[in-house]
């Protein structure tokens, strides 16, 4: 318990004004006491003798004069073995444990340790007595699910530290001291398997940052082929409601080719989290054969949970990602939705009576968003291995209009933009990523030249279709009409994907290369038809065969048969026929 206590002088929603006597630190955590309950809060502004704190809970019942204890610590998370497969709220309270304790409802002021204190871990020491180490170096390992979890020198230790004492191999709980370290000045630090780290500060215990160039395969064709994401890259998915943002995130969380996926449900529907929560333990991860939950973590601060914790939740999430990155793992953070977090900023900014920027968002919105996405990246660790944090954030623009401040601020800092489109989703063309408006700066899995050709077909097809709206089908030449049909074929047979189908829903990189080469062949082939009806009929049939082709496994006999049928169809209408 801290002896730095202030007292409340004002309450406005979840913002409290506190008069203090001893020094307070910007962004430190305080606890507002009402009766037996202590509500967690964070200092966000200091003016004269008053500090303003955002409370992470409902402030009903607080009174002027109630005490607030300042902890002296910044908002931090616990890092250690046992985070995987867990479900936390935005402040890292384990929700299932909270349910055991409090029942159906989230009782305010109840804070539990993130990590299980009883569980024993099989510890294998790696550092020996006398070794000289720096922050982030490995002291030993414990197996956590399918991974080797590194117990590292705490990131906050600066300078060089010599191992004075190292625990032998054995079975310990997380609070067991596994090493004692001593620095040049003679300070001695006992190190356990748990360390704390302030969420708003990036972990930098690595050798260097590298450029993200290796593709991250999501098995969604339109993404991997046309708008790829790189490991350690950052991308955003803006879209109006009902366009499929969340489904796309869920699909990605299942199939993405990374070691660990962290789903941060920030201010969204609880029902969607429940689906992940209940279904993932039942699904198998094709990479490991184990349950998908073993590589997944969920941070959920759904829309009805306290607003201030929503902002904390994205930082909690990215900090945990960075921690696993330090073990040489590839981690994917899926944040749904960053707009809700921006709205939380806006609410606080309004209560602080700051001068509003566009649409009443605070003026610092852009820099906050930029700083968050900058925490993604590929790093070379001190032991030479690499790890990465990839961040994919959805954006929910008001009215589906991408000109709003959150979308625009996000677009400035991401490397790929998957813009979801209402017309496409209304036409049931899923995933509803717009093939002409979206972009990516990352390298993809498919030959670049082929993709460029396909993009040209899409663009030209779109032009023809615009023209046809004016002059009608009769006024369009058959050459133009075929270009249009080709672009529609590419859309229907490749860009669209049935995410609920076992085979079609997940297309591996190899399969994408193979299938796309075939499709490319069709797009560039010179094809001839007697009239437009014949052309339409042929393309409709080709689309249906190709769709069937997408739905059979690559090693099935039918795969070859359908491919031969496509070849035969193409030969019928080609020049040489």
């Amino acid at each position, binding site marked *: 318990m801290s002896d730095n206590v202030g007292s409340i002088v004002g309450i406005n929603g979840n913002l409290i004004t506190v008069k203090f006597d001893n020094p307070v630190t910007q962004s430190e955590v305080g606890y507002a006491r009402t009766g037996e309950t202590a509500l967690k809060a964070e200092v966000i502004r200091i003016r004269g003798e008053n500090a303003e704190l955002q409370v992470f809970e409902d402030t009903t019942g607080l009174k002027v004069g109630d005490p607030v204890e300042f902890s002296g610590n910044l908002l931090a998370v616990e890092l250690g073995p046992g985070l995987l497969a867990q479900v936390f709220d935005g402040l890292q309270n384990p929700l299932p444990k909270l349910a055991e304790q409090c029942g159906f409802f989230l009782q305010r002021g109840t804070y539990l340790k993130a990590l299980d204190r009883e569980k024993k871990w099989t510890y294998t020491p790696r550092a020996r007595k006398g070794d000289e180490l720096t922050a982030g170096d490995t002291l030993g390992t414990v197996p956590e699910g399918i991974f080797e979890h590194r117990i590292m020198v705490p990131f906050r230790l600066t300078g060089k530290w010599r191992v004075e004492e190292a625990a032998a191999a054995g079975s310990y709980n997380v609070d067991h001291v596994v090493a004692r370290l001593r620095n040049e000045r003679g300070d001695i630090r006992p190190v356990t398997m748990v360390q704390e780290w302030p969420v708003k500060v990036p972990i930098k215990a690595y050798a260097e940052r590298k450029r993200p160039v290796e593709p991250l395969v999501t098995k969604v064709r339109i993404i991997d082929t046309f708008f790829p994401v790189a490991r350690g890259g950052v991308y955003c998915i803006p879209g*109006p409601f009902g366009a499929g943002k969340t489904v796309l995130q869920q699909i990605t969380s299942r199939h993405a080719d990374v070691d660990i996926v962290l789903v941060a449900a920030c201010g969204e529907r609880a029902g969607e989290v429940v689906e992940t929560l209940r279904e993932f333990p039942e699904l198998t991860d094709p990479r490991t054969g184990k349950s998908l939950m073993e590589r997944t973590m969920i941070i959920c601060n759904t829309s009805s949970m306290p607003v201030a914790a929503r902002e904390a939740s994205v930082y909690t999430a990215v900090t945990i990602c960075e921690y696993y990155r330090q073990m040489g793992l590839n981690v994917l953070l899926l944040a749904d939705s960053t707009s809700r977090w921006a709205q939380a900023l*806006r*609410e606080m900014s*309004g209560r602080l009576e700051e001068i509003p920027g566009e649409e009443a968002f605070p003026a610092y919105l852009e820099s906050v968003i930029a700083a968050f996405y900058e925490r993604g990246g590929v790093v070379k660790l001190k032991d030479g291995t690499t790890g990465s944090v990839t961040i994919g954030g959805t954006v929910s623009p*008001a009215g589906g209009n991408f000109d709003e401040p959150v979308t625009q601020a996000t677009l400035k800092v991401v490397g790929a933009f998957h813009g979801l489109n209402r017309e496409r989703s209304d036409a049931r063309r899923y995933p509803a990523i717009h093939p002409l408006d979206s972009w990516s700066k990352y390298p993809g899995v498919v030959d670049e030249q082929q993709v460029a050709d396909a993009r040209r077909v899409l663009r030209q097809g779109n032009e023809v279709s615009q023209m046809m709206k004016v002059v009608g089908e009769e006024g369009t030449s058959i050459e133009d009409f075929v270009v249009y049909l080709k672009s529609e074929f590419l859309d229907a047979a490749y860009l669209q994907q049935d995410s609920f189908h076992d085979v079609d829903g997940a297309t591996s990189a190899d399969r994408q290369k193979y299938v796309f080469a075939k499709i490319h062949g069709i797009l560039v082939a010179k094809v001839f038809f007697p009239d437009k009806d014949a052309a339409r009929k042929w393309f409709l049939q080709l689309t249906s065969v190709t769709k069937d082709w997408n739905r059979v496994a690559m090693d099935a006999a039918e795969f070859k048969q359908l491919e031969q049928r496509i070849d035969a169809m193409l030969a019928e209408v080609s020049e040489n026929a």
Partner: protein
Amino acid sequence: MHKVYHRIEQIAGNVITVRAAGVMNGELAQVVGTLGTSLAQVIRLDRDKVFLQVFAGSRGISTDGQVRFLGHKMDISFTDALLGRVFNGSGQPRDNGPDLDENRIAIGGPSVNPAKRIIPRKMVRTGIPMIDVFNSLVESQKLPIFAAAGEPYNELLARIALQAEVDIIILGGMGLKHDDYLQFRDTLEAHGALARSILFIHTAADPTVECQMVPDISLAVAEQFALQNKRVLVLLTDMTSFADALKEIAITMEQIPSNRGYPGDLYSQLAARYEKAVDFEGAGSITILAVTTMPGDDVTHPVPDNTGYITEGQFYLRNGRIEPFGSLSRLKQQVNGKTRADHRTVMNTMIQLYASYKETLEKQSMGFRMSAWDNKLLKYGERFEKEMMDLTVNIPLEAALDLGWQIMADCFEPEETGISSKLTATFWPKKTA
């Protein structure tokens, strides 16, 4: 403890300010004005200044009016005696029945732990084909009805309430016309459903602050029934009035507006209510159907827009019918796979054909020649609108599916519908002639 304060420093809109000590945030108070006594709630504290919003409005409150703090938060009595009763937005009877005072429960309680929710699996049958067949309503779903003013949304709500297989109906009326309220009550009574209903009614003539309380009070009661293993259907009409009440208070409190005058926390405020929809693990459920009128029929207006991001789909009510395009039940996949083998196929095929009908209509209006196929579509579209979309149609799901097959069979050959031959072999009606 209950000290009385006599000096009201400021009266602005429905918010009054007094100087007082030891007051809790969210505490209730009684304010006596020349027009009578009203409840008020603390919404902001600044040193010894206490800001209260007065439920009955500030009209008639004088600077020397009495303010007595009650030492507790907004609450409502929860007993089975609530059933069949009508209350106003602050929980007082408006049906001349007795006051209820036992077992008081707080309103606006904490949210449900996501770990205690389960994936919804049970369909709510309504007898309306446009819902049952095309966008099934699922227990614990939160679903708004988007409609322009003048659409028969209240009639639709009343019908769903009467036909849905639920244990308890709670109606939260916000900004209702008095006639509409009476009509709701009479309809429920006429069908003998009033005994399992509770009505919390704010009419357009009542004070704004009470409008703001209606969803909380309705949902707090719903939650208690759900915990007692009851299946509760909450009807809220109209949530745009609720949002407007929020706007009014926010502006009075000099908050910086974000979009068209609405406060920056509109999304959170709406979500806090809608997210009360729940299927408890090991207890009952709450399903929320809410009307959101769209000012100017504009879905990008902040209220429908924010709502769409929160709810699990939406029904568009247009020209007295539920629009098949745009309407969506995000949870329908959870239930429509196990109703009948042909459910999903009928759903998809009929909508695709209806979309083609719409294209044909467009062609027709532009004066293009109608082909034989076009004529079939025209025949189909008319029958679809008359026999499926019309809101007076009231048949169970199975009968609606059979009717769907019949309409298709009367208009098309089986292979023209694109339905797999396996299904047409079983379900395609045999020609009677």
